[in-house]
């Protein structure tokens, strides 16, 4: 039997051990003097962290509940229980199928949880629990991997643990009820390593880390290639370098031989990606940027080597090498790739901002104890305490307490929403006034915020139709460039000036190097990524590149009235009394609101709210009676109150006098008037109306200013509709449209003839669910409001903030992004269509102008950097006016 050296962890035979020590009743064996010395300095430290020894023999049995995910409800699981009992140290196993847990009593000295977990898994069951990845800083020694694993496994509640040396990460399955991240981190720290925050799980961070690593790798390659380039350049242009220009041809040839060898590692280390990439592509019968660079530099190197090895084969003056092309071009292109990576990193800031809304920790109550846990560790079913001023960590339902919550970041509701027991709360929203406890219902990637992030990411990676053109071109691009290079060579060789071979080679290599398919390929996706991210920053969720592209050309915007132009909620607008002055406005409102408080009519709530907003105390109501189709009657403060429409007043034979006329003018304004009679006499009118959002008129004006026709669509009667339309400045109204006909009306607008046969690009703006068919029919469907429900599914663009200004901003984002894409595509296209012919030497016959391959390399490297840089310019986009 072997034992383990507690210092270095080496497995040794006790007999052949270098030394041994007794500590706290146990014997330890050591492999070397240095281990003994370390142990002697602080024996307790090593005993404490020993993974294999539990030194408390008095410890009684431990109980643990193991959640088993797929425990069958209806039948016992004898082999699972027997398997666990067979483990030495397990005393009792009870299955609680209802709760889905196994209760195990065990001797923690003899058996560890991971062993039990192993048995459960071997019996074909899944253990519940969470997986977490913890980064470990500067983990180098392979033997420490085992110690950290053992230490983690011996931590209470850990089911299994593996440490990966390559990624420097520990992956731990554990029961969050038993263990916390802090304990896991302590286990790692015990071995003297520093755990990194468990953020590496977030894809954005992971990507960033990978980018940083790749950037360092590329920069190393660049610096190496640069270092080699300097002497290579000196020997290539020896005529201009002192001392070198005094050397004889033979000495130079030897020097060139040395540079040939020097450039080899540049090609096969600094430029390895080009050659391996070109080869993989070649095997797949495809060609890309790598192919061009590999061919160009490879040809230059082969020619040069051949020229200095067999100078006699070549005509006079053509036996000089081009190693400088090899080294410098590779250095430049690698630098270009590194810079491009840098720039790309900046493009994903929008997602980071969204993720930044997320709370970092949650105050979870488990077993009656409050503990601060990282938000990743919160489980469905956990009860979480939220205090005023704190963020709600995950989605859930309030179980205790009440508060007002600011949900503006996710739903656009600008006023804090009051929440009481049983109400839903959304993660990342801000608790304002009260403290409450809630039960988590959605955690991790299921939360509303996580889904929004996912949606934005998906959209950023989607395709704009315009990119298809670039895709088609780049599919043919590289082979075409190769063919052009071949014919450049042929033509220069056949009809070019002396030395033909040199001209032919240099020009064809330049053609290969200057062509940049990357710029074409990058043009659309980079701008799209920034543009869609920019939208998200302003509360506009654009679902796809296609929606973004179409939004640019919107000619007609159809606005749903209720909930889109208006608040969608009736409000008390007018209180009129009869001219005889018997009742004050306040009296009238008090009596009316008191009655309506009992009523369930939707308009009633508006009156009650109106009274409360004016701080009017309501009185008690007796004998309340609803008269269907007419109104209500009740007794308040000893008076008989009647509230209702004209029909009710006529039925009760109440003379209305001038009130009838006033009610008509209210109705003309799109309001709903109600007559009030007190003790059988007309007393006044209250009117309610769905009021227009404060900034609707401004937004509509802005849309019209952009040359877009604005149309209002509604199921309401024409009079009400016209009144609202006038208020917000809409000229064209489609009123009395049945919900199912809305889609049809949109279709009519699309084919409406406007001198051209191309159909109109029509956008529909609605509040989601009831407008779904119309949203789908429109070229671009914009759902307004809530970012948390089906609205996201139904629309192409979701405006999280309730304001119509979002429509303006969405179109602005679209226009800015598309302009940026056009710039990129145009630039990339022009670059290639000008660059390639110049490289071929079309200017030579006229101006004697030829491009150096070195310049071509620089141009190629920086053309794609320019594209990414131009896309990043979009980050400075600011909407003309921001939505509230």
């Amino acid at each position, binding site marked *: 039997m072997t034992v383990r050296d507690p210092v270095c962890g080496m497995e040794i035979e006790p007999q052949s051990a270098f030394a041994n020590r007794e500590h706290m009743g146990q014997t330890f064996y050591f492999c070397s003097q240095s281990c003994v010395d370390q142990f002697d300095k602080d024996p307790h430290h090593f005993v404490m962290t020993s993974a294999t020894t539990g030194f408390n023999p008095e410890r009684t049995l431990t109980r643990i509940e193991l959640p088993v995910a797929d425990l069958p409800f209806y039948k016992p699981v004898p082999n699972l229980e027997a398997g666990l009992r067979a483990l030495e140290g397990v005393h009792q196993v009870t299955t609680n199928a209802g709760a889905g847990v196994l209760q195990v009593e065990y001797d923690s000295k003899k058996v560890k949880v991971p062993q039990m977990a192993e048995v459960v898994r071997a019996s074909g069951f899944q253990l519940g629990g969470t997986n977490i990845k913890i980064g470990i800083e500067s983990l180098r020694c392979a033997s420490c991997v085992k110690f950290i694993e053992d230490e983690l496994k011996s931590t209470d509640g850990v089911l299994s643990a593996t440490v990966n040396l390559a990624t420097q990460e520990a992956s731990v399955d554990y029961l969050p009820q038993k263990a916390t991240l802090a304990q896991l981190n302590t286990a790692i720290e015990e071995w003297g390593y520093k755990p990194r925050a468990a953020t590496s799980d977030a894809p954005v961070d992971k990507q960033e880390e*990978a980018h940083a690593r790749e950037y360092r790798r590329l920069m190393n390659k660049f610096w190496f290639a640069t270092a080699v380039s300097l002497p290579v350049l000196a020997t290539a242009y020896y005529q201009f370098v002192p001392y070198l220009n005094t050397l004889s041809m033979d000495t130079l040839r030897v020097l060139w031989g040395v540079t040939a060898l020097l450039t080899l590692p540049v090609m096969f280390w600094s430029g390895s990606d080009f050659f391996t990439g070109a080869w993989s592509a070649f095997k797949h019968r495809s060609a890309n940027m790598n192919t061009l660079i590999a061919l160009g530099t490879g040809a230059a190197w082969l020619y040069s080597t051949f020229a200095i090895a067999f100078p006699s084969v070549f005509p006079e003056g053509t036996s000089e090498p081009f190693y400088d092309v090899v080294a410098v071009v590779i250095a430049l292109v690698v630098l270009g790739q590194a810079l491009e990576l840098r720039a790309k990193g900046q493009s994903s800031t929008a997602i980071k901002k969204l993720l930044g809304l997320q709370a970092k920790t949650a105050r979870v109550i488990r077993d009656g104890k409050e503990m601060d846990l990282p938000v990743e560790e919160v489980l469905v079913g956990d009860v979480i305490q939220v205090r005023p001023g704190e963020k709600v960590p995950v989605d859930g339902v309030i179980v205790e307490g009440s508060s007002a919550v600011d949900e503006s970041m996710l739903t656009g509701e600008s006023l804090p929403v009051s929440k009481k027991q049983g109400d839903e709360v959304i993660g990342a929203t801000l608790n304002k006034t009260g403290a409450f406890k809630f039960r988590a219902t959605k955690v991790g990637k299921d939360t509303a915020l996580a889904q929004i992030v996912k949606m934005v990411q998906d959209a950023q990676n989607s395709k704009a139709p315009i990119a298809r053109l670039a895709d088609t071109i780049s599919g043919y691009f590289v082979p075409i460039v190769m063919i052009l290079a071949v014919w450049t060579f042929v033509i220069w060789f056949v009809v070019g000036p002396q030395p033909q071979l040199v001209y032919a080679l240099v020009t064809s290599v330049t053609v290969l190097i200057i062509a940049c398919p990357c710029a074409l390929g990058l043009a659309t996706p980079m701008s799209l990524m920034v543009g869609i991210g920019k939208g998200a920053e302003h509360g506009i969720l654009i679902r796809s590149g296609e929606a973004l592209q179409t939004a640019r050309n919107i000619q007609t915007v159809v606005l749903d009235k209720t909930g889109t132009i208006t608040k969608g909620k009736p409000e008390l607008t007018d209180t009129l009394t009869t001219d005889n002055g018997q009742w004050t406005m306040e009296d009238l409102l008090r009596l009316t609101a008191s009655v309506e408080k009992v009523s369930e009519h939707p308009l009633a709530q508006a009156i009650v709210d109106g009274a409360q907003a004016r701080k009017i105390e309501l009185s008690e109501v007796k004998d309340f009676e609803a008269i269907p189709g007419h109104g209500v009657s009740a007794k308040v403060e000893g008076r008989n109150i009647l509230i209702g429409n004209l029909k009710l007043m006529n039925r009760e034979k109440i003379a209305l006098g001038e009130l009838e006329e006033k009610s008509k003018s209210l109705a003309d304004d799109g309001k709903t008037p109600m007559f009030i009679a007190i003790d059988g006499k007309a007393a006044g009118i209250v009117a309610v109306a769905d009021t227009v959002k404060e900034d609707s008129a401004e937004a509509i004006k802005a849309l019209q200013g952009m040359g877009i026709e604005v149309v209002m669509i509604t199921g309401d009667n024409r009079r009400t509709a016209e009144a609202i339309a006038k208020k917000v400045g809409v000229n064209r109204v489609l009123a009395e449209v049945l919900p199912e006909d809305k889609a049809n009306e949109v279709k009519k607008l699309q084919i409406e003839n406007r001198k051209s046969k191309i159909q109109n690009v029509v956008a529909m703006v609605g509040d989601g669910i009831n407008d779904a068919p119309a949203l789908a029919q429109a070229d671009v469907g914009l759902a307004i409001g809530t970012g948390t429900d089906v609205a996201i599914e139904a629309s192409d663009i979701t405006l999280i903030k309730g304001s119509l200004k979002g429509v303006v901003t969405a179109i602005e984002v679209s226009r800015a992004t598309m302009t940026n894409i056009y710039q990129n595509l145009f630039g990339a296209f022009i670059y290639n269509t000008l660059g390639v012919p110049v490289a071929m030497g079309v200017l030579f016959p006229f101006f004697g102008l030829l491009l150096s391959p070195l310049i071509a390399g620089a141009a190629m490297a920086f053309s794609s950097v320019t594209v990414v840089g131009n896309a990043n310019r979009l980050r400075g986009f600011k909407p003309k006016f921001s939505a509230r």
Partner: protein
Amino acid sequence: MSQIQIFVVFSGIVLTVLIAWYFWFAPKAQMRVAVSASGAQEVAVTVKGGYTPDVIVVQKGRPVRLTFTRQESSACSEKVLFPDFNQNALLPEGEQVTLEFTPEQSGEYGFQCQMGMLRGKLIVE
């Protein structure tokens, strides 16, 4: 024209034909995916300078499960996109990433890296 010039012109013609044939006209190797016991069509794709296999033939109406493993650090291939299915995934180096979706209509659908340098094709029959 000297002999060597004629030779160069002739070589140019041959090379042009070869390039066009090799990259455009030659039939590409296709990988037909078998339907596994679970009913899904599972393919493992290696990402290294390209996608291997890069032409994948699947049946329509059955879920396709593509497991990508990226074996290079070049940032170019860090994402794979299936624009027609609105599917995309970040491919961290050395990790297996699975994409699953069900193609309902037959046809040829491209997949590619973000900037379109690496390309593959999903043929649905």
